[in-house]
């Protein structure tokens, strides 16, 4: 039950994008079309899952036993960067259609703060192995959800008469604010 709560909390109540402001760059950059938003969300969820597993192992099996926790940031970001590269190579070899859908989004994921944020939060909250994995899945689902909703709204926005000075980034922020407001309704549920 508590795993379910953890998943639900990461995906909805404490949504990574709308309440922690993690992964805002792709949230603004790749949310113009629903189809690309879904692909990006899948790619991020996939990398998050692997990151959760690998960074947990590195932190608890390497950094803690050797007492070099100070290398946390350097090692995490290096691991994430090389993981993304590996995942990209792997997908290209294994499945061409999947690579065509996710391919261009993978390199962008390295600098997605949601990934590093996930690793840092797992350490900060002292999650166990399975908890980290569930947390990663939940965060990925939440990211996908926010991205897809945003893309849906922005597809509609193209036809809406947006005031001149709000066009582009301005209205995107206002819409994100309204979305965050809606998600606040879930606060206090857990």
């Amino acid at each position: 039950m508590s795993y379910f709560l953890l998943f639900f909390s990461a995906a909805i109540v404490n949504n990574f994008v709308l309440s922690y402001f993690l992964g805002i760059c792709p949230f603004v950059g790749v949310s113009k079309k629903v189809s690309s938003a879904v692909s990006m969300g899948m790619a991020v969820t996939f990398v998050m899952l692997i990151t959760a597993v690998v960074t947990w192992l590195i932190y608890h099996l390497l950094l803690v036993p050797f007492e070099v926790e100070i290398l946390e940031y350097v090692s995490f970001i290096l691991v994430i960067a090389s993981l993304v590269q590996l995942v990209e190579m792997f997908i290209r070899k294994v499945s061409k259609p999947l690579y065509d859908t996710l391919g261009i989004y993978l390199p962008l994921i390295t600098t997605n703060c949601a990934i590093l944020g996930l690793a840092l939060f797992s350490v900060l909250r002292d999650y166990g192995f399975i908890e980290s994995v569930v947390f990663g899945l939940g965060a990925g689902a939440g990211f996908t959800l926010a991205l897809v909703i945003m893309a849906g709204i922005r597809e509609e926005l193209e036809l809406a008469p947006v005031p001149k000075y709000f066009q582009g980034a301005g209205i995107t922020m206002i819409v994100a604010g309204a979305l965050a407001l809606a998600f606040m309704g879930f606060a206090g549920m857990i």
Partner: protein
Amino acid sequence: MSKTVPLKTEFIKGLWKENPVIASLLGLCPTLAVTNAAMNGLAMGLATTFVLVMSSLMISALRKVIPHQVRIAGFIVIIATFVTVADRFLAAFFPEISATLGPYIPLIVVNCLILGRQEAFSSRNGIGRSLVDSFGMGLGFIFVLVALGSVREVLGSGSIFGITVMGDWFNPWMIMILPPGAFLTLGLMIALANWYNDWRATS
């Protein structure tokens, strides 16, 4: 590169015309996350500027040594090192700020503003020029963070830098210090900047 651009222009551009947040939408995560009070915005801005300036210094000095193929990884390691320094420094001397900002200090590593400047500027220009550029960008970033933090703090808690400025009659708008307030304020600020640029251009 364009050696003809005077240093002053290189410095000024980061403040407004190519402001990292308002004009290029870089580094949005910390911008939105920590600006529920002016002080947090200032601390975050200073920490980011420190990392930006030090990394620019290091990377512009090493730009001919770092192999082109692995430059991104090299940049990230350098940035992460300075972030660790900033994080330890804050934890040692300003434990309260460090606790408030929490994981957002380590997240400076993936601030696209920093990596963006290294890739676009420091890896192609000399030390002096890169320093000027990164200082300008850092100041522009601090400016936006403090402005955003001040607006949100005044409306959300009735104070600025912790000093109460609103009278008893004022009923704080809780929403401003919560996540939605961050998005709404930044959206309005961007619209205001667009309007100002337009007004300047026409008059």
